[in-house]
């Protein structure tokens, strides 16, 4: 019996998709537990079923085999306590920053209350976009757009934050800066984070634990804690043991690819 409550549990989860060229096994026998307020990075090549993992947790699809549960309840449909940040910010181009952030309220309940607007102002300030409330997405840089995407996911104050390669569309500098800001947000208001990525440095910088996956079928090939304390900064990444850890992750990914 684990001490901390598990936020996310995968038990022998398999996912098979019917495609035109026959069934495709996206996930095979995945066992995974993520404790509450843990920051877990899921690292793997494209097509390894990372996004499937995220969508199963979100209740956007149901597993073909095994069971997915969130806070010990089987996931049968999307839950209110799970927020998603996508690879692209996918904002509404016609809506201001404020309206994009309050969109979950408008979409779910049909209206935006004064309380919703206060909450939006709070999360907009938290992601560093105070003063940009009235701007349209097209007037923002890619990094700022993704901040709005994060604010939108935080708006309903979810216990679990699912992030699907959220910074992969950004340039390298913005990407690092966003990583540090995400850590600040997470430390200020702890959440369980499942962070999908194919970047080793990003996984090492952000996560408590890295799950390494192989492609086709998607399997977990390693589940390793990151040997790095918190808070973290750029210098921490240059420590030799962190470099070794990153190299180890790289070896795992490459060895698996070579074996195929």
């Amino acid at each position: 019996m684990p001490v901390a409550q598990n936020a996310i549990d995968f038990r022998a989860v398999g996912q098979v998709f019917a495609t035109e060229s026959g069934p495709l096994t996206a996930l095979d026998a995945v066992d995974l537990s993520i404790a509450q307020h843990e920051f877990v990075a899921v690292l793997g090549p494209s097509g390894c079923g990372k996004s499937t993992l995220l969508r199963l947790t979100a209740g956007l699809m149901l597993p073909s085999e095994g069971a997915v549960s969130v806070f010990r309840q089987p996931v049968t449909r999307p839950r209110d306590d799970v927020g998603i940040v996508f690879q692209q910010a996918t904002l509404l181009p016609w809506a201001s920053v404020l309206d994009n952030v309050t969109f979950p309220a408008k979409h779910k309940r049909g209206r935006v209350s004064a309380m919703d607007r206060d909450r939006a102002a709070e999360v907009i300030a938290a992601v560093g976009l105070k003063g940009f409330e009235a701007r349209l997405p097209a007037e923002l840089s890619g990094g700022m757009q993704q901040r709005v995407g994060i604010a939108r996911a935080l708006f309903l104050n979810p216990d679990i934050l699912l992030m699907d390669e959220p910074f992969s569309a950004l340039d390298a500098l913005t990407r690092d800066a966003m990583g540090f800001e995400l850590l600040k947000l997470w430390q200020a208001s702890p959440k369980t984070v499942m962070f999908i990525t194919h970047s080793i440095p990003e996984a090492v910088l952000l996560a408590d634990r890295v799950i390494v996956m192989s492609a086709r079928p998607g399997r977990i090939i390693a589940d390793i804690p990151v040997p790095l304390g918190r808070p973290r900064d750029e210098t921490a990444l240059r420590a030799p043991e962190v470099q070794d850890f990153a190299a180890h992750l790289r070896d795992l990914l490459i060895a698996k690819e070579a074996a195929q």
Partner: protein
Amino acid sequence: MSAKADPDLKAVTGSLTRKAPSLPLTERLIAMPVVLPLLTFAVILVLWESATRVFAIPSFILPAPTRIIEGFSAVPPARWGAHVWATLRVALIGYLVAIVVSLPIAVGLAKSRLMSRAFYPLLVVIQSVPVVAVAPIIIVVLGTDDAPRVVITFMIAFFPLVVSMTTGLMATPPELIELSRSLRAPQYREITQIRLPYAIPYIFSGLKISVTLAVIGAVVAEFVAADVGIGFFIQFSTSMFRLPQAWAGLVVLVAMSLLLFQAVSLAQRVFFPWSLPKERR
């Protein structure tokens, strides 16, 4: 201070004027989006006028622009008004009916693969029917008032609207649909708050194509059966051998189509500025 009193300043301004890059003539012409096409148009009119005079082309083959203007003024403004209004009314009603009918069909096609498999081929068949050929049949079936004309206009204007709306409704990023599902929002809000606004740029390309098609539809209907309207006027003038007047009718039609097209563009610019490409906002 005069430039003379300060040789340094003169040197500076002198070098400034020398260095100021003067755009080549073509660049300067491109920078005049209104003047340039008008200029082209004027040149064509002058060439046209001179050609008809130099080669003594009879006006029933190609009337000179001045003859067309004479033809235009020979018809009293009230008559023009009646013709324009008749055509405009049918075109607009047919256009509105096409919009109202195509929207639910597009939503059905976009939301349900079953519907799109079942009905899309049928729509293509309907589109492939030459409306000009069906027009006389429709007139016989529906009589000679506005109804058959509206139906003919509708048939011409309808298809591009359905296609553009359906394409637009399916152009929504899948992540937003996932967001909608993850919020467990009512289905209709996925349409009204996400898919429809996302389709706006597509819908407006359809609306722009269809509004000019609606004018064509109204004219086709008038060719078949009408006693008023620009289409009727052109046909009547031709049968009376008043070719300059028929040409004047044509000019009025072109002006009507252009104005309607511009009205739709303006509506998009005013109500949905975000839906335009950045450089045209």
